[in-house]
Structures are given as C-alpha cells and as structure tokens.
C-alpha cells in the first residue's frame, strides 16, 4: 500500500502559489475535456446528465461554496466541450466504463505520486483539479483521455473533514488514484517523471484495489490524527487539567503539517484538535473532569467565531485564557454568549476589548458561572447560583394536594381506606368498591429501568401509546368487573404505600365533575375524579425483588348501582388506571411557597389530612370500623371508639393509637378474648 510520506519540510507561511488550473482558466483549445472534472460525493468523477450538462459545468467546485475561482476557470471552457463530454459519458455508460460501479476489464488503475509535493497543494482541493487537467492535457494530442474514478488524498493541512467523514473522498497517503481506459493507460504512464507544478510525478499502473470511501479514515487521515494527538499530548497539563492551545502558530509539528498556510486551514486545524481532545474521553463527565481549562492565548484571534467549536466540543470548561489576542469588542465574543455554562474564570488581558468600560458588566450577563475576569472577582458564588438556575426555562411551582371532593370528603376517606387495603386485602377491596362495570388497567412506562425490572408488569401493561390503539392487547389488558380485577391484582407484587400521615409523600388532586351516566338509567350523575401521585415499596417475592416505584393512580368514582351486593357504599369505582414509572423525583411533593406572579384563582390545597371534624356517611364509617377490627382484633365497639377519638376517623392514626393503648385495653376489647 501507499508508503506514508513524512511531513514536508519548510512549507512557507504564505499559501504556495502553485500553478492554478491554467488549462481550464485559459479556455484555450488544448484540453480534451473540461478543466474541472466534477467529483461526486464518492470521489467518482460524476457524469453530468445530458440535460444538465451545461448548467453544472460552471459550478463544478463541488457545491462547497469555496473555490469560486476554479468554477470561474471551468466556466469559460465548458460550453464548447459540453456536447463531446455528453457523448463521452454516454459511451462510458454503454461500455460500463469509467463511471461504472464495477471495475471493468477495460479499465486500468493508476497511482500517481507527487501532487503533495507540488506547489499546487495550496489550492483548496489540494491541487487535484489542476493535476487532472495537467494529465489530460499532456497525455494525448489526438483524442480525449477520459479519467474515470479519481481518489485523492485531501492533501495539505489536517482538516476536520479528514476525520469527520466529510465529503466522502478517499485519503490514501500521498497518492492520487485514477482509472482510465486500458487503451489510454500508456498515454498517461508516458507522463511518469514529468514535472507537475515543480514536483516530479511518479505514475504506476497497479492491480491493487482502489481505495473505497469506507477506507477513508485510514492512512493519511490516521497519520494526521496521530500527529495531532501527539500535539495534544504535549499541550495537555494533567495537574492543571489544562489544554494549552496557545501560540499554535509557533508549534513546530503543526507548522510542518502546513497548518498555517492560510487562515482557513488554521481554523480547521483548531477544530480537529478540539474534536480530538474531546474524543480522548469516553463520557461527558470524564471529559468535564479531564479538561477544565483551555488556553487560546496568543493566537491572533480577532473573533471567537474562528474558534467557536470550543463551545461545542468542550462546553463545560471552567477556565479560559484568551489573553494576547486581537479581540476588540464584545461583538467579537458574542458568538459564545450563553455558552460555557460552567465558565468561572476568563482572561482577556492583552486584548483591545479590555479598554472598554462596560465589558465586565456585559460578560457576566453572558456567562452565568463567571466569577473572575482577568483576576478580578466580578461576582459572588451566591450570585452565580441564581444565574445558573436561570439558564433554562423554569418548571412551574408545585403546590400540595388539592382536594375539592365536596362536603362529605369522599375522596379523602376513599384514599385512606383504599391504599392500606390494597396493600393488605386486595380481594376484599375489589369486592367492596368495584362492580361488574368497573374498569382497571396498568400501564408501565418502562423506559429507564433504573430501579426495579418491569417483567411482572409488562405483560399487563396497557400503554396504548406504545401498543397502538388497534392492538388487540388494548382489549385483553383491560380488566372489567370486580372478580377479574381481583384475580389480576393477586398476580401483582405486594406493595406498601406510605402512610397518609405523611402528606409530603402524596400528591392527591380531586374534584367533582358532571354528566356521568346515572346508574338508575335516568339523567346524569356527578362523578369524582381522584388523581394520586406517589411512591410505594414493592416486594416481588417470586422474583425476590424489592424496591420503590413511582405511580400515578387515577380513579373515577360514581354513584353505586342499587343492585350492587352489600356492603353497599354510596359510590363505586368506575375506572381505576394505574400508571407506573421509573422516575424518581428529585424532591417528591416538595411544598414550595407560591411564586409571586402566580395568582391562585380558586381555593387551593387542603393539605392532607383534612383538618377539622370529618363528616362521614355511615357506610364509610362502618367500612373503617370493619377494617380496624380486622387489623386489631378489637370488637366493633372498641374499634369505633378508637376511630372516633383523637384519630378523627383517620385509619392510620387509629391504628397508631391502638398500638399505643394496646397494653391498657381490657380483654373485653378484643373479639377473641380468652
């Protein structure tokens, strides 16, 4: 394969002024073909379509918006050659020739060495076009030589696209690869040893496979990458976590690579260096830790646009040294405005901007963490904390539970009974609050898997968003009727919900709404919508898994049907939707002070548990009594006493007071008193 060539010595600062594509520019009749073979994205010389032939010749610079000179060079000569080119290309098609996908038997592959040493390397395309023109012009005097595929190194300075998959051209050391018709090969090979733009050309025929786009990163780019990596290694200070990209212009290796032949190239070298530097780290946090400071001092910068990519590749740096550049106004730093969220220290000494009176005040508005400019403390850590918080849109304030469940506190009582019973006696819960028309389903939002596995739930998950509304599973995973629901609940892992005594652990919103169907079949009934957000502990004994899940549970309560079997509660669960997800809130239900511009429009937030005497219907009271009896073994009478006392019909409180008073209770308080 291509032997790598060492860096060229002594490339001057000024772009070499090698011969331009003189053939193309002259427009004379020497060329057999257009001056600028248009290379397509695969590096192949593209065919102009017959219809578009004349139009595209002029923009043959590859659509990259630079090289307008080349385009101009090409244009003058294009029209006169259009028809012959079209014919040629058609012939190529017919014969499976140069532009064909497979290498035809009629084609020869040639490797040309020498372009990289020529004076034309300073051209934007590394001198490729003028080399091809040169070959075509010199090769034959009687008939057009058609060069087929062309692969060329992107010669000269290290460029971001060498590494970043830009413009799928092949890089293969210092060789340009071309294919020509076998007939034409001798004409080109004849040029072996000719001098092109001051450099001798070596042209050989080869049976090697032409490099392909996927080889791109190999060879020259790899070499370039290695050189740049060594530059980076020398310029990294592990103690200071500093990437020192100062005075790049005096870097011997970079200079030897021709990096500073033009401003354009220097910028690209910088981009590659920064990309490479950030690629040394596997994760963003390693990078953040590894490179905390960057120096771009003494680089003659007059606008940070030239080094803008630093903000993309190393957005988390804390210290930045821009001293001894030519930045003369804020507008020259403006591109970095609101970038570098963590930038604490900025050095601008030796830039004209420092003579402007307002620059400090402006800069701290641009960089939220900035505390130190040119060694002066400009902001306190407290001020930084405020600024940092304000870098993103702000979540709405969180208020406690909002229970608007009517004078009977139906929802409060319901949730107090529901969750402890769901933890302890699901069968009974289903029997008492669910009837034949109740619906229940679970949806698991199983995206991060941070806590517990989802296996148990996924087979039941009725996430219509994920399943698709036409999926039969949306019917199968909908559980209707108390019996079915109870059976399904049996299969779920056991749970323990937090105590209702801890209002901070629950967000319960509830209100009544009109227009449910009345169970008597006439008119409308009022419904109650309860949304509960919280967490529960789960123990999956079959899988031996324990952990916490965050849930949302939505209940629709409506009036009971008269036909429901006793114990008849005045209401039943019409709909019960359980949503489980992995999200662990940073501060679940933090009770925050209202924000000033937030004006509550209606009575807000009865925090749980409701203060004042609770008014309960007898059925619910009975329900609570039954539950206390079951849990404590006390008689109905004592259970009621326990509930109606200081517990104020709060189930959890009643149990607590029972535990406290247990020792003092007479044997007659218990049903199974011995």
């Amino acid at each position, binding site marked *: 394969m291509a032997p790598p060539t060492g860096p060229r010595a002594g490339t001057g600062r000024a772009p070499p002024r090698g011969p331009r594509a003189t053939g193309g520019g002259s427009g004379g009749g020497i060329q057999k073909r257009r001056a600028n073979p248009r290379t397509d994205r695969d590096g192949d010389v593209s065919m102009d379509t017959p219809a578009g032939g004349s139009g595209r010749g002029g923009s043959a610079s590859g659509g990259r918006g630079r090289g307008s000179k080349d385009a101009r060079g090409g244009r003058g000569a294009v029209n006169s050659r259009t028809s012959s080119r079209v014919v040629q290309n058609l012939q190529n098609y017919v014969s499976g020739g140069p532009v064909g996908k497979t290498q035809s038997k009629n084609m020869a592959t040639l490797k040309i060495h020498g372009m990289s040493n020529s004076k034309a390397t300073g051209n934007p395309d590394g001198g490729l076009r003028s080399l091809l023109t040169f070959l075509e012009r010199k090769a034959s005097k009687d008939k057009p030589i058609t060069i087929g595929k062309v692969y060329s190194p992107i010669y000269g300075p290290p460029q971001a696209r060498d590494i970043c998959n830009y413009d799928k051209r092949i890089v293969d050391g210092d060789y340009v690869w071309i294919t020509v018709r076998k007939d034409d090969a001798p004409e080109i090979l004849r040029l072996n040893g000719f001098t092109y733009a001051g450099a001798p050309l070596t042209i050989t025929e080869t049976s090697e496979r032409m490099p392909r786009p996927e080889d791109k990163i190999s060879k020259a780019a790899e070499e370039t990458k290695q050189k740049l990596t060594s530059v980076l290694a020398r310029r990294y200070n592990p103690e200071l976590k500093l990437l020192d990209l100062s005075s790049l212009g005096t870097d011997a290796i970079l200079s030897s690579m021709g990096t500073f032949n033009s401003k354009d190239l220097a910028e690209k070298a910088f981009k590659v260096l920064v990309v490479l530097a950030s690629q040394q780290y596997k994760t963003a946090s390693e990078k953040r830790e590894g490179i905390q400071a960057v120096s771009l001092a003494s680089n003659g910068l007059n606008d940070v646009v030239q080094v803008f990519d630093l903000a993309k590749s190393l957005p988390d740096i804390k210290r930045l040294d821009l001293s001894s550049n030519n930045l003369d106004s804020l507008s020259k730093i403006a591109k970095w405005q609101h970038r570098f969220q*963590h930038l604490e220290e900025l050095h601008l000494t030796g830039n004209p901007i420092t003579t402007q009176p307002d620059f400090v005040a402006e800069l701290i508005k641009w960089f939220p963490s900035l505390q130190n400019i040119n060694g002066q403390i400009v902001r306190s850590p407290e001020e930084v904390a405020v600024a940092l918080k304000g870098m*993103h849109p702000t979540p709405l304030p969180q208020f406690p539970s*909002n229970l608007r469940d009517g004078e009977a506190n139906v929802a409060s009582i319901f949730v107090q009974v529901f969750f402890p019973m769901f933890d302890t006696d699901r069968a009974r819960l289903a029997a008492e609050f669910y009837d034949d028309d109740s619906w229940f389903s679970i*949806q698991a939002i199983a995206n991060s898997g941070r806590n517990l596995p989802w296996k148990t739930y996924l087979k039941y998950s009725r996430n*219509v968003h994920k399943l698709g509304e036409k999926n039969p599973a949306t019917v199968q995973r909908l559980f209707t009727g108390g019996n079915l629901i109870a059976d399904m609940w049996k299969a779920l892992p056991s749970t323990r919900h937090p105590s209702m005594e801890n209002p901070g652990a629950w967000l319960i919103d509830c209100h009544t709404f009109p227009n449910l169907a009345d169970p008597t079949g006439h008119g409308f009934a009022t419904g109650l919508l309860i949304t509960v957000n919280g967490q529960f502990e789960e123990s999956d004994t079959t899988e031996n898994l324990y952990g916490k899940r965050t849930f949302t549970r*939505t209940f629709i309560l409506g009036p009971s049907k008269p036909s429901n079997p006793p114990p008849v509660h005045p209401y039943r669960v019409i709909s019960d939707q359980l949503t489980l997800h992995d999200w662990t*809130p940073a501060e679940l239900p933090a009770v925050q002070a209202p924000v000033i511009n*937030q004006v509550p429009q209606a009575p807000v937030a009865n925090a749980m548990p409701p203060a004042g005497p609770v008014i309960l219907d007898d059925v619910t009271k009975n329900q609570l009594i039954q539950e206390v009896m079951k849990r404590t073994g006390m008689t109905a009478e004592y259970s009621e006493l326990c509930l109606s006392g200081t517990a104020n019909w709060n189930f959890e409180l009643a149990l607590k007071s029972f535990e406290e008073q247990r020792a003092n209770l007479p044997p007659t308080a218990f049903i199974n008193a011995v």
Partner: protein
Amino acid sequence: MANITKDEAIIRSSGEAARAFTDWYYTQLTDGKPITSAYVNSNAKYLAASHPPADICINGTVVATPEEWDALLEQQRLIPFTGSKGKVKYEVEGFDVHVINKDYRFAAPAEIQAATDAKLMQRTEDARLMMVVTVAGSVVFGGKEKGTPPKQHFSDVFVLVPNWDFVTRPKFKGHKRYLVASHTYRAY
C-alpha cells in the same frame, strides 16, 4: 376486519380518540402554540347547555380558564438569565384511556338526546363517549447547548367529552372530536 363486539369497537374508538388528542395536544405544547381550543369552555354547544367551565388544576392550583393555563405555559418557557423564551419539550411516553360513560348525551343535538333517530344512534354508538385519559411522559426544560436541562416527569389526566360539532361526521378523526372537560396536571 374481524367482527368485533360493540365494546371492542368502543374501546378501539376511545384509543383512537386519545391518540388523536394527545398527538395534537403535546405537539402544541412543545411548539408553544395555544391549546385553548381543546377545552369545552369555548364550544358553543356546551356554552349553550350551561356546561361549567373545564376544571383545570395545575400542580395543585386551580386555573380558571384555558387562557390562564396558556399563560402559565408561556411563563414556564421563560429563561430568567437571558430574558428570552426557551423550548419546553413534552414527550408522551404512555397513555391509557377508559370509557366512563358509553352514552354521553349532554349538550348533544336534540335527536341524539331524545334518541329518536335509531340509525343516527347506531352510527354514533362509538362516538358518544366520555373518557378519562391518563398521560405519562417527560418534560425537558430547554436545550442541551446550555448544559443539561432540567427534566421532570409529568402526569396529565383529562376527562374528554364529545365535540358535537364533529360527532355526526364519523369520518372525522382529528383531535377536535373530543373536548376537555377536566384537566389535572402534575409535573415533578
């Protein structure tokens, strides 16, 4: 399509309606466009029938009108440090929907209320639905270019009722087939 039972037709119809609604609603939120038209408040038929305004409860605070909810969303987009507006991206990760009244007729056209037209009743059988939709997803506050943006989980619960302007047009599948009668939002 195989024969599906009436209940299956209703279940599917509710899924389609919830899909159309959530697709539209959260795109509007993320794009910073108004969502006021989704609520019963501005619908002439519901107004005429004296339906109460939609019950909107945002993070525990009752909000009187959809316009105020819009204003809260606008406030949420504000980036205090720069004073400019950022993007608040809502991404739905799941929704579930239950039909809670299979024969909703409030504010319906007279012939539906009285059920005089058997054909019409049959044709609108899977469209006269009152539903509860629970949506779960994430909210991301701002773009990555300014550091890792804050993220929250959101839970939205809607009660949807038929938009009678469209119920008699069974081909109509847009988000406006149903209107929001109740909205409970929590993001944490």
